């Protein structure tokens, strides 16, 4: 099993952050979580991550803006969008900005693992 991957999670929902952190750290990955999108973007530009999970609906900054900001610093960043709304108009602009996939909540951990291993 491929371990030691760095995962960045940006979501305003603390429970999502906690869940992903616990599960993936348990698997041996390193997970950094940010409920503040701006702080998350700062972290992403500071360090390289194997997978960045970005929630689309967030106060202050939305997922598309976050994606654009990260991709402007790290064009190769693998950004996976997660959304609670299956048909969010922001999805299109976020995908345009460079996100490579979209994951609907509730999602299976296995899906993220697939994405993680897809690298």
């Amino acid at each position, binding site marked *: 099993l491929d371990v030691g991957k760095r995962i960045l999670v940006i979501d305003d929902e603390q429970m999502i952050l906690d869940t992903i952190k616990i599960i993936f750290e348990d698997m041996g990955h390193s997970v950094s979580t940010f409920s503040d999108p701006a702080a998350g973007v700062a972290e992403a530009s500071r360090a390289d991550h194997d997978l960045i999970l970005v929630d689309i609906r967030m106060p202050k900054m939305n997922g598309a803006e976050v994606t654009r900001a990260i991709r402007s610093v790290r064009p190769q960043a693998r950004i996976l969008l997660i959304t*609670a709304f*299956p048909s969010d108009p922001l999805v299109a602009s976020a995908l345009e900005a460079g996100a490579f996939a979209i994951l609907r909540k509730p999602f299976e951990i296995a899906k993220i693992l697939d994405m993680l291993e897809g690298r």
Partner: protein
Amino acid sequence: VSRPFLRSIPYEFLAIILGANLVIGLAGRFLGTAIDSRIKAERGRELEAIADLKLKQVTDWQEQRLSVAKLLTRSPLLLGELTRSVQQGHRVAGGPLAELFLDLCSLNGYRRVVLYKTDGEPVLSSPDSAPPLSPELLYKSYEALRKSRPVMSDFLRDERGRILLATVAPILEGNEQRGTLVLADDPERFLYPLIRSWPTGSATGETLLLEFVGNRAVYLSALRFRLEDPMDFASPLLDPRSVPSLLFSGRRGAIEGRDYRGKPVLASARSVPGTPWVLEAKVDQEETYAESRRMRLVLSSLIGLISVGLTAWAAFRLLSLSRRLRRERETLVSRFEFLSRYSNDMVLLLDENWRIVEANDRALEAYGRPREDLLDMRFLDLLEDPAADRLKGLREELSAKDGILFEAEHRRKDGTSFPVEHSLRLLPVEGRPMTQDVARDLSERRKLEAERLALERELLAEHKLSAVGRLAAAVAHDMNNILTGILGHADAMRMRSMSDPRIQSSTMRIRQAVERGARLTHGLLAYSGQQRLETGRLDFAAYIESLGGRLRAALEPRVRVAVSHSPPPLTVRADPSALDVVFDNLAANAAEAMPGGGVFSIHAAPAAGGEACGGGPPPERSVEVLVEDTGSGMDEETRQRLFEPFFTSKEFGSSAGMGLAITGGIIRQHGGTIDVHSVRGKGTRFRILLPLCADAE
């Protein structure tokens, strides 16, 4: 003639008029009888007078004849001459006596004057010679000699059969009987005309002389109505009602009986003194009746005139009464009309038998009947369900209360029915307990109510929709986060304990529950329109074929799935994953409605038009999708509320009652319509219309 008029005729008045006419008629009849008897009496008196007059004339004539004879035989001068001639004993021709005899004949009207010897041998006769005395005259001459005065003979016939009346005078010299002088009269010369002459101008009046010989009445004078010569006709006294029979039995004075012709006559008779003769004056009863008839005619004309006058007066009174009634009625009607004609409600005036007396235009219009048709009907006839007991006690209730309000179904002439609200109120019209019915056609109100209800329902649904939408939007985000947490940890558990089958099973169930929760939020979002459809051109035929395969896998063998469609192309603009939700929901419901199995069928075909959705223009063409099952069906209330969110029934809505609400929402989002037809115990049919792509390539 109208009913009110018939009712208003004062029958007592008519009876009085009839009675008056009857009295007049009876009086007329009585008067007629009185006139009859009066005329009869008058005629009787007239006949008596005529009889008396005739008798006097006849006796005067007799007197005169007898006195002539007396004068001739008492005169000494003449007596000497007569005696001498008799004593000479032979026939004398010429001489002064013969001259005298001739003068007597020509001046006094004798037919023949003859001097006889006492033995009956003629001595001197003028103007012609005479035979010896006949036995009757010989007898008369003895009588005259014995009585020493002239006597008159009965009617006799002479040797040549001519009728004569003779005055026989004795020729006496002291006590010596010398002979007789016979003065023979021709009755036709004087007596008969005298008898025949009638003093008044009567058509049937007649005077006659008769004599009873044995059991026969011999008529001595000529008769007005028979051709026989005098004395040649006799009538037997067989009929006791005949005048001769009555006379024979001694009746005199005014007599009613039958004459020789058998005709009823009125007669009066006198015996002629010194003779066996009866003088009878008679006239036909018919003639007297004719007179009384004339009188009666005059009388009855008079009575008729009075009666006609009276009746005409009565008729005039009745007419003016009816005119007054009509005027009153017209006034009433015009008042009623003024109040009711332009009323928006129907106004009926009912009499005490619930018969319609008046109706306004609105009522005629509402019932679709002409006025005369409606005015002949009873209130009950208007009701859809003419239960007679409905009106029972209604009048009592009416008089107890001020008015009654009730609703009833009414029937138009064409058989359709409509709801009516009645407001009944007693309305005494000219002392009659009429009822006024102000009736309101509720159809419009009912329609408006139904529309309002539908609108309310729609608004409510919309309200629910937007509320659910807001709720869904709020919940979905949080719920999905929560579910993500649950699912994530369940996954983690599963991955950590791959070898423990119980944990594997439990985490699988958690996953399923989470998936269901996710579907619910997804559905809520879809229903409320929060979720965007990902629509594109869709080959509907191909779509339902693959759908059929999927459903078969899920439902068969318990439920048979039949899918059919008209030949392609059937291209619609749709989101297939959303349509999946639609058909999955319908299939799930159908399967639940058919616990014992059945058929679930989907059929798609193009249809003309389609219903406008959300105020937009109706599509020109649609695909009609009929989704049918053979299940338990549903009742009307369920059917009506089927697409409401959170509506569940026993048969439907195993979940939160969102299935069909979501289905409806998705179809609406596609610009389509969905409705449902269901018969309990027979099954349910959904009809979905989806707009066809106009430019089907």
